[in-house]
């Protein structure tokens, strides 16, 4: 890989910068000149209704979907057009919607897939211990098939698998979907905890209440465009946000 065009991340530069990102699904415009950024150490949310383009944004940043225009910069390097298996090496790791764990593979193998591209055996071992420490149930069930875990445990496995890739930025696509309210709160705690270890997080959520409570800043996505954005404390008090996303 040629690094000559890349510049080191200067102080004050965002970790992730998305500029005028435009994405089509066939002929349908999914994202229309979307710009957003995530600073080092931040939790940022993208909130929006079903079909607003939230998942498309995540999928395009991780490289699963190719944009037709715009730029994505990460850690001083332009990454749009890069395949997902290279993007992950830079430290952008996605926790996909619906958890998408490998159902018939053991819990341990699921976690090892997360570390596929890493060579640092010591670091992998340390991160595995750390995942087990945070989610003891995964250690207990490490030889069971991933599909045998409950929904909440599968979410832990999906997060654990992503942590095994040694992320700088975690992209979380609807982590609360299909979970009971108690588990949603649990996932919220996990996100805070991961963030406290220095990992930045871009969180996509239909559950606006959860997203705005966790994040420091948020972008409201309306049918492919960024509507409002700003500090979550301000957004929570915004009348339009209250009416549209927080149920009054």
């Amino acid at each position: 890989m040629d690094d000559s065009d890349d510049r080191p991340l200067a102080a004050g530069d965002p970790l992730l910068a998305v500029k005028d990102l435009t994405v089509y699904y066939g002929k349908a415009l999914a994202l229309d000149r979307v710009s957003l950024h995530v600073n080092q150490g931040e939790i940022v949310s993208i909130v929006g209704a079903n079909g607003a383009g939230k998942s498309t944004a995540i999928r395009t940043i991780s490289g699963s979907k190719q944009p037709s225009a715009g730029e994505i910069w990460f850690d001083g390097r332009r990454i749009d057009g890069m395949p997902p298996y290279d993007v992950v090496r830079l430290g952008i790791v996605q926790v996909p919607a619906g958890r998408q764990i490998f159902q018939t593979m053991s819990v341990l193998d699921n976690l090892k897939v997360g570390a596929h591209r890493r060579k640092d055996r010591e670091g992998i071992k340390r991160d595995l211990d750390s995942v087990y420490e945070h989610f003891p149930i995964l250690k207990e069930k490490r030889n069971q098939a991933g599909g045998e875990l409950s929904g909440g445990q599968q979410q832990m496995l999906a997060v654990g698998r992503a942590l095994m890739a040694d992320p700088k930025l975690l992209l979380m696509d609807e982590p609360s979907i299909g979970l009971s309210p108690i588990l949603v709160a649990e996932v919220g705690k996990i996100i805070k905890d991961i963030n406290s270890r220095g990992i930045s997080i871009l969180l996509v959520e239909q559950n606006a209440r959860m997203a705005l409570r966790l994040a420091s800043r948020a972008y409201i996505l309306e049918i492919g465009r960024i509507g409002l954005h700003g500090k979550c404390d301000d957004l929570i008090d915004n009348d339009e946000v209250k009416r549209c996303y927080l149920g009054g």
Partner: protein
Amino acid sequence: MSVIMQLAFDGLTIGLIYVILAAGLVLILSVTEIFFVAYGQFYMWGAYITWYVVDRFQLNYFAGLAVAIVATLVFGLAGYLLIFMRMQRMENRFLITITGALGISLILAQAVLVVFGTQPKSIPGVFTGAFDVGGVHIEVKKLALIGMGILVTLALFWIYERTRVGRAMRAVALNADVAALYGINPRFVYLLTMGIGCALAGLAGGLLAPAYNLSSGMGNNVIASVLLMTMLGGMDSLLGAVVGGLIVGQILSFGQYYTGQMSVVYLFLFIGLVIYFRPNGLLGHRTDMGV
């Protein structure tokens, strides 16, 4: 009683060839989702190449086996790079990859006639001798085949279940898009799997060569049986391939002794019945392959 034991022994011998063949095809089917009907020809080519190296160059049998494995591996890699890689990106990839595989199958089947002629081949004298145990006539060449077959199967399981490459193959088989999110390049895994799968077919042919006669129709003859084995065991299960291969080996061994040509019909009926009650096969998980 000794007849039954003899049939069981012979069924195990050919069964282990089937196990390796079915295992290779299961890898190709579950990982690449290409319905690879050319697979039988790689088996035939493996056998013929082994024969050629031993017969013409007077080289050691294991040298012939090694050449057969490398050659079929290279065929498989080339086939993927030249033909399937592009086809896999197409909208109608399921049908078009079958068509591609059919084309490869025809070419390889004809090429063997052109290169080696129509005379049946054999490699006598590699493993000689025989002994009787409890009325069962055990030829050393079959015993050698059984031993090597078991070793190959164990090695394959170790690679698939215990190594990084095997894990990547399993992950891509389950969900290539998600595997890519964690650093696995699905196209590289498809390429590798096609190479390994074809090399397993070549290896099976090479293992068969000292113990049985080779004919130019053996590739065509075996492909239907191998597809049936994978359906019986489950198209995404390596263990299923082992079970399927061993069962089919026994059915054909006993069937041919007691019912002659009808044995293939009974095989179809038996597997049809199993699939009727267990659509995923005995040990498989999914039926949506390639769709």
